[in-house]
């Protein structure tokens, strides 16, 4: 029997080509009693590995192949918990003590943390083997002796790691002789990088990606052969036939190691409650009752019972401290005026509401606490809080300051290969030209890499690619095999953990790109480690709200008390005029708003939940709208369903409803009901769905429901399967949605300005927001050197684009401009360049986006002077002659025809005038503005083409509502966010908005049109489109059902 003690998984990041599951399954198939995982310098795979190994019935041995100072490798294995803790400490030092991305273990640190660790001499990159390979035998012997002295004879083992590479035979012989001369043991490993021989090709591709080489290139990191797979005992025995003791030793060492990772034990700190309270539970109760008095004023018996019920469950599960920690964070945000809003299922909790964590009253809306927490499930609660994106870091800093650096860390996230990224990386390795890869990748929708083959067969824009079949097929197949492999480690958007013990007892730390310490595990893994994650999320919408309020001159509305029945706001929603409104701006949402006729907040709650894959696929949208308008009768399969579904017109819309139906109709326990919700919301297998459906029907029949009715009720909730919202979450989002619609309605300039300030956010690009602003009477002014600020400035009913929108602009440059301008306004381009030094690319961008237009000089002329302006800017003290355009070496020298301007050092150049320097054409100006600002300022491209298009019968978005529904029209514009959402029938429908100078035209392309014109809809580059199709009116909304799609350049 053999055990592999040197194994890499994909968590060796581009150096492991088989999933942990596959490696473990292969080891189990080969009857191995144990398996080690030794990824490079990280333990990121450890939790998954331990779980998979336990499930497969084999012993997991946690380890790591570390890089020592000098770049040499050592293989470390944890014998026990102490070894694991020491390994975490060693890796933390290696990461935090060295440049980011180049961890190095220093021998002294390792020596002082050797307890509980077995040290193997490593692969060919180990110091001892590499010395032997260089024939420095004496140094190798001295090193081995030194390691033996440091780690001890029993803990330092000579590793024979490979057998079929050039030089292996003599290397293994020398290593074996060295071991025996020093009384050390030898162990055979295979430096495993993939499970089976056939996985070598994936490993080779990954190596090319890692080393930025192509398959055709030679690189020392690429393996010479495909021998690094998980070989059987027989294969290992044959290859190490001269070293049977090394084969035997693998088993002996495996027996010395126990599973070093404890999963599941809760590791959350006790909250330091104030004096006068007996316990954290006592303090929590006090805060909740105090909060309840403020929120409810009169605490009725029902409210008290609900709070007691929730507190009881929280106490029984031991999460009082968790609630207090979150309360403390929110309280801090409140004190610092950091805008925040709770989201997710926490809004099902009256305790969270009373603590001020969430804004939704779950008692008033009859929300189920069991959706959030239940004794039966006993799971950790998950409270998510959104903070103003720009100030979220202040909250995080507070956590670090309060609980200490050693007890707080950010959660990592594994950036995995998706369809596009896999195509890009594999394409590069295969030698595709950059342009070719770009076109392919941009046509690939956002799908997992494992669905690439299917996409390339079914999507017309991918079928239309002109690439030789076999080459493309290899690309697709190889990219597909990378599905789900981690590409690199990044920081989770908002997840932090606070632990009772130092976090480094559970995970090594490393530094993120932003400089914060992150764990080596993701959100799921940290929970398995017993850590509780708190999500401190950043939501740009909250930043936009804050900005809107600060931009409003004079009396500002009280955001927290915005009336929820504002007629004008609901009228806006009914017009589907919602671009910029949180959650309600997508074409599908605008389409819904045009039909729904929202007139109260409940309609918005329903809207948020309706435009989700579950309700759409379950065909619930149209019945909901019809019933909302009384055009369809509401009937219930069982009278007991009425109180549950009454508010949603008999339609199952929320997860809470599913749970309630299951408990009322089938008598499901909370745990069973939650399992049902999980099976449905996580798109589990058909078998799981059938199984729980069977249980539902069986239990319902026992409670007197006929089998037919029970089956039909289950079908109704099954139709809802996958991706439904919980009502609490929908309510939390709906409140923000309504309030942003209110701000848009009453303070459009400020709100549009705030959206631009907080880019990127929302569904639409900057250009669409600017078009929308203009079409709502808000003039969008281009950036100005004397009037723009870092952020958008509101000038009456106009907004002025800020410096920060200019491509390449840095904060330091903005600060210099504003500081200098505060002394005196800039009087000319030359005055500016004399006083503010900027690099030429930024200055060029300032010119081309019109920052100096107020000086009445043409942009072309300023661009011409750019180089010479620099001569002045660089020597502000000197008097010098500045050649005008047409002068100098480039233009034939100075003379009477080529005048010069004399600078007296006071900036008094006045407005230079350069006759003969024509301005750019409008089209050129707009093209530069798009390049630099992301939007046109001088005009919209469609405005330039409008006359030509008009002559050909094209109608604009402004004219579309005047066309009779059913008539055929030609429309054109810049396509915005084409989408292929899931549909009830499973057929592909593409929704795309065409942006013109007045707004958006929503276009629907059904499968036949998409099949023909998909290559234009998803061309992989920006391409203005024309559409010929039929006008459709639904509710208050107009759209075009496309019959033909074509590049607009065909008609221009």
């Amino acid at each position, binding site marked *: 029997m053999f055990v592999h003690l040197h194994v890499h998984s994909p968590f060796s990041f581009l150096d492991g080509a088989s999933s942990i599951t596959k490696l473990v399954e292969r080891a189990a198939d080969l009857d191995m009693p144990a398996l080690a995982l030794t990824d490079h310098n990280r333990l990121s795979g450890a939790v998954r590995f331990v779980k998979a190994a336990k499930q497969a019935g084999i012993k997991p041995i946690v380890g790591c192949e570390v890089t020592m100072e000098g770049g040499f490798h050592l293989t470390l294995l944890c014998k026990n918990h102490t070894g694991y803790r020491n390994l975490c400490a060693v890796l933390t030092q290696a990461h935090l003590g060295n440049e980011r991305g180049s961890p190095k273990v220093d021998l002294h640190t390792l020596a002082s943390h050797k307890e509980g660790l077995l040290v193997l001499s490593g692969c060919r990159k180990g110091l001892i083997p590499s010395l032997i390979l260089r024939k420095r035998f004496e140094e190798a012997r001295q090193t081995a002796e030194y390691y033996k002295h440091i780690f001890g004879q029993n803990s330092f083992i000579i590793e024979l790691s490979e057998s079929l590479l*050039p030089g292996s035979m*003599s290397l293994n012989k020398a290593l074996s002789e060295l071991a025996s001369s020093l009384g050390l043991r030898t162990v055979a490993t295979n430096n495993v990088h993939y499970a089976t021989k056939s996985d070598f090709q994936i490993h*080779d591709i990954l190596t090319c990606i890692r080393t930025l080489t192509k*398959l055709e290139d030679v690189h020392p990191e690429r393996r*010479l*052969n495909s021998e690094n797979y998980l070989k059987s005992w027989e294969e290992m025995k044959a290859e190490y036939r001269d070293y049977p003791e090394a084969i035997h030793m693998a088993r002996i060492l495996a027996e010395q190691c126990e599973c070093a990772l404890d999963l599941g034990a809760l590791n959350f700190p006790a909250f330091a409650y104030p004096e006068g309270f007996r316990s954290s539970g006592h303090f929590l109760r006090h805060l909740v009752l105090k909060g309840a008095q403020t929120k409810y004023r009169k605490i009725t018996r029902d409210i008290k019972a609900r709070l007691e019920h929730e507190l009881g469950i929280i106490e029984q599960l031991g999460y009082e401290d968790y609630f207090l920690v979150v309360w403390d964070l929110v309280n801090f945000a409140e004190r610092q005026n950091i805008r925040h809003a709770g989201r997710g299922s926490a809004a099902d909790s009256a305790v969270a509401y009373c603590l001020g964590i969430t804004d939704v009253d779950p008692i008033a809306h009859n929300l189920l606490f069991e959706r959030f927490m239940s004794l039966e499930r006993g799971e950790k609660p998950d409270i998510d809080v959104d903070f103003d994106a720009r100030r979220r870091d202040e909250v995080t800093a507070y956590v670090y300051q309060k609980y200490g650096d050693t007890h707080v860390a950010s959660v990592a996230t594994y950036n995995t290969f998706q369809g596009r990224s896999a195509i890009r990386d594999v394409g590069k390795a295969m030698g595709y030209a950059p342009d070719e890869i770009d076109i392919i990748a941009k046509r690939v929708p956002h799908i997992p890499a494992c669905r690439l083959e299917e996409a390339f067969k079914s999507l017309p824009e991918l079928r239309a690619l002109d690439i030789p079949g076999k080459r493309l097929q290899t690309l697709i197949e190889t990219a597909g095999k990378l599905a789900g492999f981690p590409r690199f480690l990044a920081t989770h958007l908002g997840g932090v953990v606070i632990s009772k013990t130092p976090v480094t007892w559970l995970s090594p730390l490393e530094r993120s790109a932003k400089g914060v310490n992150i764990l080596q595990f993701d959100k799921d893994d940290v929970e398995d480690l017993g850590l509780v994650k708190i999500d401190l999320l950043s939501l740009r919408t909250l930043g936009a709200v804050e900005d809107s309020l600060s931009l409003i001159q004079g009396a500002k509305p009280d955001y927290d008390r915005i009336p929820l029945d504002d007629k004008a706001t609901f009228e806006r929603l009914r017009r589907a005029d919602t671009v910029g409104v949180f959650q309600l701006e997508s074409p599908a949402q605008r389409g819904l708003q045009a039909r729904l006729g929202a007139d109260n907040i409940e309609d918005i709650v329903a809207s948020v939940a309706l435009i989700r894959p579950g309700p759409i696929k379950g065909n619930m949208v149209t019945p909901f709208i019809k019933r909302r308008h009384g055009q369809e009768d509401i009937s219930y399969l069982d009278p007991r369903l009425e109180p549950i579904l009454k508010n949603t017109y008999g339609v199952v819309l929320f997860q809470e409803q599913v749970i309630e139906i299951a408990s009322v109709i089938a008598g499901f326990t909370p745990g069973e009901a939650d399992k049902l919700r999980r099976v449905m919301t996580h798109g589990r297998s058909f078998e799981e769905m059938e199984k729980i459906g069977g249980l539902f029907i069986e239990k319902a029949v026992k409670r007197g429901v006929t089998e037919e009715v029970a089956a039909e009720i289950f079908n109704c909730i099954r139709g809802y399967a996958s991706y439904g919202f919980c009502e609490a979450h929908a309510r939390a989002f709906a409140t923000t949605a309504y309030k942003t619609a209110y701000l848009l309605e009453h303070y459009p300039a400020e709100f549009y300005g705030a959206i631009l300030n907080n880019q990127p956010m929302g569904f639409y690009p900057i250009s669409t927001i600017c078009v929308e602003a203009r079409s709502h009477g808000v003039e969008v002014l281009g950036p100005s050197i004397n009037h723009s600020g870092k952020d958008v400035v509101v000038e009456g009913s106009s907004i002025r684009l800020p410096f920060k929108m200019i491509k390449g602009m840095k904060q330091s440059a903005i600060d210099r401009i504003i500081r200098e301008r505060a002394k005196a306004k800039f009087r000319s381009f030359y005055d500016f360049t004399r006083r503010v030094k900027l690099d030429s690319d930024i200055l060029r961008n300032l010119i081309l986006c019109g920052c100096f237009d107020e000086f009445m000089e043409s942009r072309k002329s300023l661009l011409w002077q750019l180089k010479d302006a620099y001569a002045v800017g660089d020597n502000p003290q000197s008097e010098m002659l500045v050649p005008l355009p047409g002068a100098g070496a480039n233009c034939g020298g100075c003379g009477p025809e080529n005048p010069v301007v004399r600078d007296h050092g006071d900036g008094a150049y006045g407005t230079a005038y350069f006759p003969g320097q024509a301005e750019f054409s409008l089209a050129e100006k707009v093209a530069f503005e798009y390049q630099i600002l992301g939007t046109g300022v001088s005009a919209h491209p469609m405005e330039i083409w409008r006359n030509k298009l008009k002559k050909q019968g094209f109608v604009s978005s402004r004219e579309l509502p005047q066309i009779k529904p059913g008539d055929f029209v030609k429309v054109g514009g810049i396509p915005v966010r084409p989408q292929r959402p899931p549909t009830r029938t499973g057929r592909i429908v593409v929704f795309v908005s065409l942006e013109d100078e007045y707004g958006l035209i929503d276009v629907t392309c059904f499968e036949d049109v998409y099949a023909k014109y998909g290559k234009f809809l998803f061309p992989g580059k920006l391409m203005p489109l024309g559409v010929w199709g039929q006008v459709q009116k639904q509710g208050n909304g107009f759209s075009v059902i496309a019959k033909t799609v074509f590049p607009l350049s065909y008609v221009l």
Partner: protein
Amino acid sequence: MSKIVDQPVLVVCENGTPKRFFWIKKWITVKAVIDKWNEVGRWWEDEKEKTFFRVLAGEGGVYELYLNQKHWNLYRVFD
């Protein structure tokens, strides 16, 4: 110094290890296998894995042979 030959040769093996090979009109006996390794080559062009043997001949020379599927080649001769 060595010379790349890369010519097909007849090889007689024992337990998968070359024992003698026929080169320039005579049989050369393998005294010892000095080294053995595998090489994948250009797998993306469907090239198959080869097994290389560096052998010491009875007469004293050093040769590199490889097995490609079922065919043997003499790859290199060392001075």
